[in-house]
């Protein structure tokens, strides 16, 4: 387990617990320690600052989109390729069953090292899978652990967004990681955009936004201020009406119990799909467009 820098107290307790177990372990002592760790985690994760949330969302052990998809989809049949020039390994996709209903599952993963990669192929692959969903009247589910880098992929991103907006089948998205950049808009285009509790979504990364602050300041504080000002947490976005609902994470974040987190996501998805699948396709599309049209309109009343 990699501990984040604000988790020092938890790390110390965990070390103590490991030592105790190594030495044979005392039942009562162990339980007491575990309870202390739980209390500590609750306290920490109950009042994460936005910048801490970004760090949690970028935690390397946080479940990736591919893992989530594999937990969600029974008998997942992965489909590869954008039918043009490549297969982006950071975009996972396929068809599967959730509770007896066929769905198209799409996952956007972050690169291991976090560095941006050319994403045009991945966005084309996404659009292709969305078209498959439309053709065979299957709801589409997007699990976004990251937003594909869109710097080099303007046309592909535009085509992908257009496909998503044209869908006459339900599109449900779950942002599970740190999403930033133009391609993050894809998650918001869904009929039901959901977010994990400690995920974040913003127009640019806090690092990029920090450029607006005067130079020479304390870097850590600038980042923290930038993250604060971006209002990128799930709670903030829910308040802005950008997303539909927030999915609670297991104690201490999804990276502590990836499987439980994936099951939570599955339950939330299922509830949305059960509602949306009865709605007429044309109405779905109209409402999706209407919801987006309201953003940025002067008279937009909450």
């Amino acid at each position: 387990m990699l501990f984040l820098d604000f988790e020092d107290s938890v790390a110390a307790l965990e070390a103590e617990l490991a030592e105790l177990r190594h030495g044979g372990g005392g039942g009562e002592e162990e339980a007491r320690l575990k309870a202390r760790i739980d209390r500590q985690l609750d306290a920490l994760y109950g009042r994460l600052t936005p910048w801490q949330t970004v760090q949690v969302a970028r935690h390397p052990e946080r479940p990736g989109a591919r893992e989530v998809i594999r937990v969600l989809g029974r008998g997942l049949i992965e489909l590869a390729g954008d039918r043009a020039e490549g297969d982006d390994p950071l975009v996972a996709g396929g068809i599967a069953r959730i509770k007896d209903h066929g769905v198209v599952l799409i996952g956007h993963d972050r690169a291991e090292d976090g560095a941006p990669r050319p994403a045009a192929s991945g966005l084309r692959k996404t659009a292709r899978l969305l078209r498959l969903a439309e053709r065979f009247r299957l709801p589409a589910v997007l699990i976004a652990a990251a937003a594909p880098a869109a710097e080099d992929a303007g046309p592909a991103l535009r085509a992908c967004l257009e496909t998503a907006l044209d869908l006459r089948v339900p599109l449900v998205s779950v942002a599970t990681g740190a999403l930033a950049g133009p391609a993050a808009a894809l998650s918001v285009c869904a009929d039901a955009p959901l977010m994990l509790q400690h995920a974040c979504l913003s127009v640019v990364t806090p690092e990029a936004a920090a450029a607006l602050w005067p130079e020479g300041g304390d870097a850590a504080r600038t980042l923290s201020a930038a993250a604060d000002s971006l209002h990128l947490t799930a709670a903030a976005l829910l308040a802005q009406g950008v997303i539909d609902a927030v999915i609670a994470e297991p104690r201490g974040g999804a990276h502590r119990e990836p499987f439980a987190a994936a099951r939570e996501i599955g339950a939330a998805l299922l509830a949305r799909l059960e509602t949306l699948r009865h709605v007429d396709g044309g109405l779905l599309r109209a409402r999706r467009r209407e919801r987006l049209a309201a953003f940025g309109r002067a008279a937009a009343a909450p």
Partner: protein
Amino acid sequence: MGFGGRAPSGSRVEPWPGITGGNGMSWLTNFVRPTLRRWISPRVLREAQWVTCPKCGATVFHRDLDANWRICPHCDHHLTLSAARRFDLLLDAESWARIEIPGAPADPLKFRDARRYGERLKEAAAQSREAEAVAVAHGRIDGRGAVIAAFEPHFLCGTAGAAAGEAVVAAAELAVLQDAPLLVVTGSQGPRIPDGAFALLQLPRVILALRKVAERNLPLIVVLADPAFDPISEALLQQADVVLAEPEARLGPPPADPFAPMDTPAFLAPRGGVVGAAAARRRGRIDRIADRRDIKAEIAAILDILCRPFPSATILAYPGQETKLIDAAPDA
């Protein structure tokens, strides 16, 4: 009536045809030779074959190879599989029937290279026991109706001419008629040169036919089997909803001599522009690579999802929400 020399009197039946009339020579030519032929050839001769795997060089008795769906038992190399065996592999036993392909113009150009094209056609038909390079059947895959067009790689190397195009078009039309998914199995070395412009024009015909399948939202699944060197296979790969490939199946431009023998090591030698299944997957051309023996199960699983859509709308308003529409889906 029993078999024997003593026919009832008055009968005109000759129990040993050829024995009674003429001289000894005619007995030999009329009776002994046909009987021997019947015993030995062509079935027995064909069966006494040993096949050399083009990849690992192992010699396999052809019946063992056939029982293993022509996958080399030593190196798992997938040798070319005939269309008839392909139907056996993919379709439920006793559920399927071939369909008659309307006749295409045979040898429209009276083409002749080292040999007459007409001769080649007759020989190919005798060797492959297929009428042309694409065979079509309809039947069931795990209980679900489907139409399959399979290239016959042993009919003039599966080269695609007028008849092949006609067969793919017929399969597409049948799929639309039956409201069934369409499967196509590739296996062609290139266009059928002796068919001239008739071969050339099959590509647009196939594209039009596939569009009708797409308009009806019927799944098109393409099984990429080695080789896929003709433009029709190329179009199929582009149009398909899902492409499954056999390991090491190749696609690319046709070789200089599209009638060059298959299943020889030279056939597997790398050639410019040709990519294998693994590379094609990296390049985004195909979805999955699957062993020939697993392909039926994969297709069944895919069709199970694609052909069972969620029920169409039962609620025409958003539950619990009053929505003011600004775009009432003009083209819905």
